[in-house]
């Protein structure tokens, strides 16, 4: 069954079985978002479970299937912000992992994400752009879904993506895939 059908099935029927199918289909994406935003695998697993508890509990409020991914990642993003707020011990929202705790390990799953290229690219971006780039390029969200997830107008989303590409164009030439392409051509 395709992801869209699985989502529709869950939103329509709300059964445990439909929820299990939904979890199997998309939990990878939520967990990956947390991992790529700098959390270790134990924390990413824990927070993924929190997100799906909220999906189980609150998805009934969601009427349009098309808004599901935007809503899902808005929940995930809020969960992450709450985590950083708790970790920092500050009473205010943090948009980025604490400098001394996480910045050197944007992706920290031992032995798996060490040499990952996206980690290098994200380092060149501002915190607000990192979420956008991950959700757009890794998770494939549309601009409309991004607008729901980040609660921003579509125009602002596009403008930020444009700026992110512009920044990355300075370091993109060093990509191994590009070097391979140049070699082939």
């Amino acid at each position: 069954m395709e992801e869209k059908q699985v989502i529709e099935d869950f939103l329509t029927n709300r059964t445990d079985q439909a929820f299990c199918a939904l979890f199997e289909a998309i939990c990878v994406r939520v967990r990956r978002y947390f991992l790529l935003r700098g959390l270790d695998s134990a924390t990413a697993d824990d927070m993924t479970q929190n997100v799906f508890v909220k999906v189980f509990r609150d998805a009934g409020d969601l009427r349009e299937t098309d808004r599901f991914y935007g809503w899902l990642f808005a929940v995930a993003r809020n969960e992450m912000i709450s985590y950083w707020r708790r970790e920092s011990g500050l009473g205010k929202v943090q948009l980025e992992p604490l400098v001394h705790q996480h910045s050197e390990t944007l992706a920290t799953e031992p032995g798996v994400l060490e040499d990952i290229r996206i980690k290098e690219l994200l380092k060149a971006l501002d915190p607000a752009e990192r979420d956008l780039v991950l959700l757009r390029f890794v998770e494939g969200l549309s601009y409309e879904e991004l607008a729901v997830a980040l609660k921003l107008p579509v125009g602002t989303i596009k403008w930020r993506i444009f700026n992110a590409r512009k920044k990355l164009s300075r370091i993109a030439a060093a990509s191994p895939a590009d070097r391979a392409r140049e070699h082939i051509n």
Partner: protein
Amino acid sequence: MKHGISELDWNDYVDRCAPQQVCDRIEAHLIGCLDCWEFYEQMSRANRALVDAAEEARQKTIPEDRQLHLMLSGVFSRIRTAEAGVPLHSQVKGRLSRLETVLAPFCGPKAAVNALHAAARSSPASSLERVTLDNWGPFLEELTAIAAAMCGETFAGLVRESGQF
């Protein structure tokens, strides 16, 4: 905006979702403007780098089936607990507190706290703050082993009993 082409136009063009009219305008301009041609090449290169890096990230972050199963069990466990109206952390906190009460008279309050921390560190939770209902079993096993080493098997049995939900 440079040469009449806005940032949003460029963004849509690189994404291949610009209206035909915008595509025609940009392409007509690119033929005669080396600056803009180079800019477009750079943006396309950045886009390709992102697409390739995203594909690599997707490949390298696939969890094992066992891990998915554990997480799904954890989700249902949290849902059931929430439905029962008892906050998860208070259940775990209460049980940790009970274990500390059991351990303290035998080995002292400081050693009791140290034993809890050591058991958490050796278990999948990796720290006491991360002990949850999902990873409680392995944590309790570690604590039982520590209790056995400190005060013998009978005491370890008492710890195991006290720690079971």
